[in-house]
């Protein structure tokens, strides 16, 4: 009797083991549907165009859902759209039309093909978008490309992920539009050149720096204030200067000459170098005796400016400094 019971237990155990092996993991667990890669708000904003390149490439990605690679090709075709950008503007800015996001101008991008195939065995295909002339873009505006799947030329696709807003960011060695970049004033002076009111201020504030072109940035002159950024367009245009980086200095290869120009209407005059305010952009490496180093990007500026013709000039001797990690920049 005992032996019979043992035999029954063994048979049951054998069935249990065999039963676990019967599940078919080899079969597709979901549908193979094409989708356009984006976040939950239908925006793809993970790529940044590098202004230091003549032409940089970002990608619009079409993916294929499913648990296994498909054994057949899937056709994908895109077409221009505008529904998402309209929805974005309406939901974010409503009647503030001046702040609406814009389409990336046609002169700034090229898409070689709007049709592609996800080959059998692959799960995605990338549509390259070549970006150029990005220096013509305002760093204060939001730029998108809006594309959706062309249903007539695309195999089965997910209707809830058939459109995407591709956010266009730009970056250079000094700043980026992907996040706010601030340089801090240190050892700086703003002097009003007026005998009757020779006011000297020592700003310790920070100055937001915006990328313009490969080697140019925009910042507020002196210690001018931008105020609320959402309503600052006129103040930015009146009070901003453009700093253009040039060749290495003969004195220090870590420094580059800069040229200071008006951004829009400001009256700005670049003055000759004096002391440490030598009109350079410097990679300043401050090392401690134990061998560790702190890395700074520094604008060392000497200029004068005025906002109105009747105002006295203000002389600016400014060090604008931002700590950075060269290792992080390589990531």
């Amino acid at each position, binding site marked *: 009797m005992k032996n019979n019971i043992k035999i029954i237990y063994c048979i049951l155990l054998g069935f249990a083991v065999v039963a676990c092996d019967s599940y078919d993991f080899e079969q597709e667990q979901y549908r193979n549907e094409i989708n356009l890669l984006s976040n939950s708000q239908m925006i793809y904003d993970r790529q940044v165009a590098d202004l230091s390149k003549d032409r940089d490439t970002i990608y619009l990605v079409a993916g294929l859902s499913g648990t296994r690679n498909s054994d057949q090709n899937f056709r994908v075709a895109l077409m221009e759209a505008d529904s998402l950008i309209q929805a974005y503007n309406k939901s974010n800015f409503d009647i503030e039309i001046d702040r609406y996001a814009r389409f990336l101008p046609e002169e700034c991008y090229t898409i070689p093909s709007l049709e592609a195939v996800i080959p059998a065995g692959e799960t995605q295909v990338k549509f390259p978008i070549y970006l150029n002339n990005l220096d013509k873009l305002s760093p204060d505006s939001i730029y998108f490309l809006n594309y959706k799947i062309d249903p007539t030329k695309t195999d089965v696709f997910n209707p809830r992920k058939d459109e995407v807003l591709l956010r266009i960011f730009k970056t250079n060695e000094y700043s980026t539009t992907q996040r706010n970049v601030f340089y801090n004033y240190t050892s700086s002076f703003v002097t009003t*050149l*007026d*005998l009757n009111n*020779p006011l000297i201020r020592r700003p310790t504030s920070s100055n937001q720096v915006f990328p313009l072109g490969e080697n140019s940035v925009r910042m507020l002159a002196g210690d001018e204030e931008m105020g609320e950024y959402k309503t600052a367009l006129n103040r930015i245009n009146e009070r901003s200067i453009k700093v253009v980086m040039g060749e290495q200095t*003969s*004195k*220090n*290869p*870590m420094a580059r000459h800069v040229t200071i120009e008006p951004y829009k209407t400001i009256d700005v005059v670049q003055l*000759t*170098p*004096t*002391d440490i305010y*030598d009109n350079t952009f410097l990679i300043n*490496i401050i*090392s401690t005796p134990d061998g560790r180093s702190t890395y700074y990007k520094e604008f060392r500026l000497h200029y*004068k400016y005025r906002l109105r013709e009747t105002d*006295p*000039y203000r*002389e600016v001797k400014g060090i604008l400094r931002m700590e950075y990690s060269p290792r992080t920049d390589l990531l």
Partner: protein
Amino acid sequence: MRKNIVLFGLIGILISALGVNSCAPDYQTDFEVKTLIVPDKSLAPVFLPVEGGESVANVETNVALADWSTSSNAAWLSVDKKEGRVTMTAENNDTFAPRLARVTIEYGHQAYYINVTQAGNSPYLLVDGERTGVVKSFTAAEATTSVVVKSNMALDHILIPDTADFISVDAITDIPGSTDEKMVSFKISQNFGRNVRYGGITFQSSDNYDHTASFLIIQQGMVLAELPLRVDMLSTNAQEPNEGPIANLLDGNPGSFFHSAWSYSISEAHYLQVTLDDPIAGCVFWYQNRNNSNGKPTDVSIMVSTDGETWSEMVHLTSGLPTGAGSTYESAFLMLEEPFKYFRFIVNGTNGGTAPTYFNMAEFRMYAPE
């Protein structure tokens, strides 16, 4: 049963022995650690003379020569690696400023940095033989002055501060027989103010912006004398008959006052006129307000004339005029190309209204250059 216990015991001992044996270190395999070290002494900043030279940094390493690298970030400093050493070489520095370079010695992710500085040629830049301390003084009249600037650098920047806009560069000329000297001339405009004014002139070269020379220009203020005004020189188009005769403007008593018409009206702006004995080229006028709160001029045109018929506006003052009781105002020096004999103080507006409206004043004076 006892046999099984013995058997299991032997198996346990055997497994334990194998386990202990497997943990024994492998002393036979030869592990070679690659290292590269630049001693602290070689990491000290290097200073090279202006004529150039060499400096050697020691490298303690067992890495093959081809597998580690060295580089310089400046074109003027070359680096050469040999077994156990890096040689840094600089040629003559033709510039007038010291220059910097950074040498990197690296193996894999390990890097050492050496800062190298090479001296530049010694610059000289002198104004009338001095780098600082030369002072040139002038009267209020228009003037010119020159200084001799001696330098072995390019003289390409002459800095005149915004606060010294009365000074301008007139000419830069070579001095015959001298290769490193130039004559720099300046124009100094007439000082129409009473105050002394100063201008520090700085010479600077793009060969070395840090090496500057400067001198100071001092210009005396204008010396003005009060014009001896008489009552018969004064007139107005709107004398108030009930109070404030115009003669009160010259009595030296701030408690008395002149008042223009309030008991009747005229169709033009009220004014005060001075008819001088002789034409003058320019003047400063001064007045003191009556010691009350109304009738204070806030918008005034100063018109002048040579014949009392044709008038020219010398200045239109719309700001800066005081409205306080007993307050005073002194104008800047005012002048036109033509001398004038007739001076008219026309009140376009007061703190009580716009012309035609009354105004009042306690004292009035005029000054002209001596």
